């Protein structure tokens, strides 16, 4: 638990630090060291996911001056009991590059909607694997990034893993009553030898 709290703190600090991120144009770069004006890929593209009902919503926050390719975004199931449908993505902005052709891209942010179902609800933590690839407009591209993401269950939404549990409680109660009943039936006509 301490580890996850630390990780969240690091995540929040990182998010705060990167908020005003702005890529400088190509003519502003120094050459003395590799302290470049380009952002590290995890700062340029921040990904997070949450669960709403039977949907997983994956959201990328993209720094100013950076973009993600629509066709390079992919969301797959990582938990063994999870099945996801292909991600539904909004139409992107059409970008035509004479050397790469026409592509749809996203600036600022994008949210993928992924319908999902689970075979064995609750047995495994919900995990998805996301792949994405993007560039800086100033002329730098990052290799495809693949990450395992733990979608968070929204506080005001009923998590999909809840429904089975009331039945478990009833099963426990019914089991206990069955033992009581069996005990009473078996006891009928018998005396218990208890040493006095």
């Amino acid at each position, binding site marked *: 638990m301490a580890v996850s709290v630390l990780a969240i703190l690091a995540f929040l600090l990182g998010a705060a630090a990167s908020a005003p991120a702005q890529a400088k144009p190509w003519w502003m*770069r120094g*050459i003395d060291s*590799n302290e470049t004006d380009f952002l590290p890929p995890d700062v340029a593209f921040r990904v997070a996911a949450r669960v709403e009902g039977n949907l997983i919503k994956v959201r990328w926050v993209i720094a100013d001056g950076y973009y993600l390719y629509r066709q390079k975004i992919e969301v797959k199931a990582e938990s063994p009991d999870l099945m996801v449908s292909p991600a539904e993505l909004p139409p992107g902005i059409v970008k035509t590059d004479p050397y790469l052709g026409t592509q749809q891209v996203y600036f600022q942010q994008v949210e993928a909607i992924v319908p999902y179902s689970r075979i064995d609800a609750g047995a495994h933590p919900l995990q998805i694997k996301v792949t994405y690839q993007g560039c800086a407009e100033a002329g730098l591209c990052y290799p495809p990034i693949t990450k395992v993401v*733990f979608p968070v269950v929204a506080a005001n939404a009923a998590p999909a893993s809840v429904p089975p549990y009331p039945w478990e409680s009833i099963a426990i*109660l019914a089991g206990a009553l069955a033992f009581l009943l069996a*005990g009473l039936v078996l006891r009928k006509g018998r005396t218990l030898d208890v040493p006095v």
Partner: protein
Amino acid sequence: MNTPGLRYVGAALLVLVGIWAGLKFHTVRTVPGAGVAVPAGVASAPDPTDNAESQAAAPAPVIPASLPQFSLKDLAGKLTPVSSWRGKSLVINFWATWCAPCRREIPLLKTLAADWGGRELEVIGIAVDYPDKVRQFAAQFKIDYPVLVGEQDAMDVAAGFGMSSPGFPFTVFTDRRGEVVALFLGELHRPQADLILSEVQNLNEDRVQLPQARRTIVQGLERMAAKHES
């Protein structure tokens, strides 16, 4: 102790203990995967594979002062050491076929190879990509300067230049002694290339020292920036 009433009470107690234990167990089971408070606007807990903390702790990689020794395969599959070009100034361009700015640079690199070629300068492409794709692309774009290609091995070479999690393209300029004059991250344009290469030429002909050449390059780039902004 034989009173039937007491036994019923005992049995009922056992059942209650069973139910209590069951419910307690049930509560414990719902804990994994849930229960981490996340503030509004932050949709997800961080990925455990996200090494933001270790990145913060890692020392910043350094661009080497002189050309590291490495070997990679050429497009024919022949292992080629960079020492094959010993004594020449190099423009080493790291690129990939899926990268738009890398593709845009190819005509410039071909022109540089043609324009500066007779002056002991070699343009070398290092494609961090699948060899088949690179061969096909090089034929299509008629790349006429030497191209080396590799996957993890080419990534390792990039890391040797201080670019362990690289973006593409980036271009390394060395003088004839193998000193790294500049590493230019991102898409290279003709005025910058000419500026850096003229300083490389000055270094090769011992007209300047490296610190002065670098200063000239930085000042030149700043002038270009000011001109571009005005």
